[in-house]
């Protein structure tokens, strides 16, 4: 059970872990962002980046970069990034890219949860922004409501394949993140109660991952 005052956000989940980047990862990220069939939809939007410049683009305006790796492999399957940090206003932006062959495995959700926990525990951010183009908003889960709040929309902003798509900015507030985590625990407990009452006792005993000093309202 983590000590509430010395709690360090875990970077290891059940299936994935967040680790520092190494130069040997760069070709993997370059392929992920430029060589896949749907790369035109992601960060560089189909623009080629010279190999000698690629690593610099990975770190431009970046506060935190973690490689997402499966527990059983050193090869990165994705990248999570916190960029554009503004400590005067306590805000930053986040992004995530998971290689196509590893999507729909639950890795993105777990990596995102580890990353957001890490950012809110390590920095005094009030909220984290994410930008999502209209073609990706529905499947990414940010448009579902609840934990993400739509804070802006640039209409017909992004051109792709003959269509100008809207570009949305969503915000993840610290307080809503904490509520989301608590709500998920409550719902899981309720499901287990439906399933088998005796299991709920053991679930109740699970440690709460966020200490009280980091709860909503404690850090501005």
């Amino acid at each position, binding site marked *: 059970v983590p000590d509430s005052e010395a709690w360090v956000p875990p970077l290891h989940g059940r299936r994935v872990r967040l680790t520092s980047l190494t130069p040997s990862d760069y070709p993997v990220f370059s392929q992920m962002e430029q060589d896949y069939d749907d790369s035109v939809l992601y960060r560089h939007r189909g623009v080629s980046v010279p190999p000698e410049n690629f690593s610099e683009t990975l770190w431009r305006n970046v506060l935190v970069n973690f490689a997402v790796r499966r527990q059983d492999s050193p090869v990165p399957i994705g990248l999570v990034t916190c960029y554009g940090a503004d400590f005067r206003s306590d805000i930053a932006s986040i992004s995530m890219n998971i290689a196509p062959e590893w999507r729909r495995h639950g890795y993105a*959700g777990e990596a995102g949860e580890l990353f957001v926990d890490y950012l809110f525990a390590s920095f005094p951010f009030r909220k984290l922004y994410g930008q999502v183009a209209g073609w990706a908003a529905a*499947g990414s889960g940010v448009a579902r409501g609840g934990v993400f709040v739509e804070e802006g929309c640039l209409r017909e902003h992004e051109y792709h394949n003959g269509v100008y798509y809207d570009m949305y900015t969503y915000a993840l507030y610290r307080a809503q993140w904490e509520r989301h985590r608590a709500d998920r625990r409550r719902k899981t407990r309720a499901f287990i109660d439906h399933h088998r009452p005796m299991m709920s006792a053991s679930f109740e005993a699970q440690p709460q991952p966020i200490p009280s000093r980091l709860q909503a309202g404690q850090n501005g």
Partner: protein
Amino acid sequence: MADSQGDVMSIDQFVIAFCEFFSRDAATVDRTSRLVDDLAFDSIEYAELLILLDEIAGYTVPEEMLEALASVDDVYIAYCNYSAHS
């Protein structure tokens, strides 16, 4: 509502619990409902489903099985299988 069948919920009970967990209207969901096409499941909900199955199984279930889950009925079968091995 049907009675529980041994250690697992009946499909009717499961649909209700499933809808409570994923915040869907149980009146519009049945065992044939497709996760993506009918319930608009997204990547975050797939991750939540996996964690839920972990909790039921009591261990980390293989994530590759998510690819086989297309409908509520598929999820129910997975639930029954993992309950049996928990």
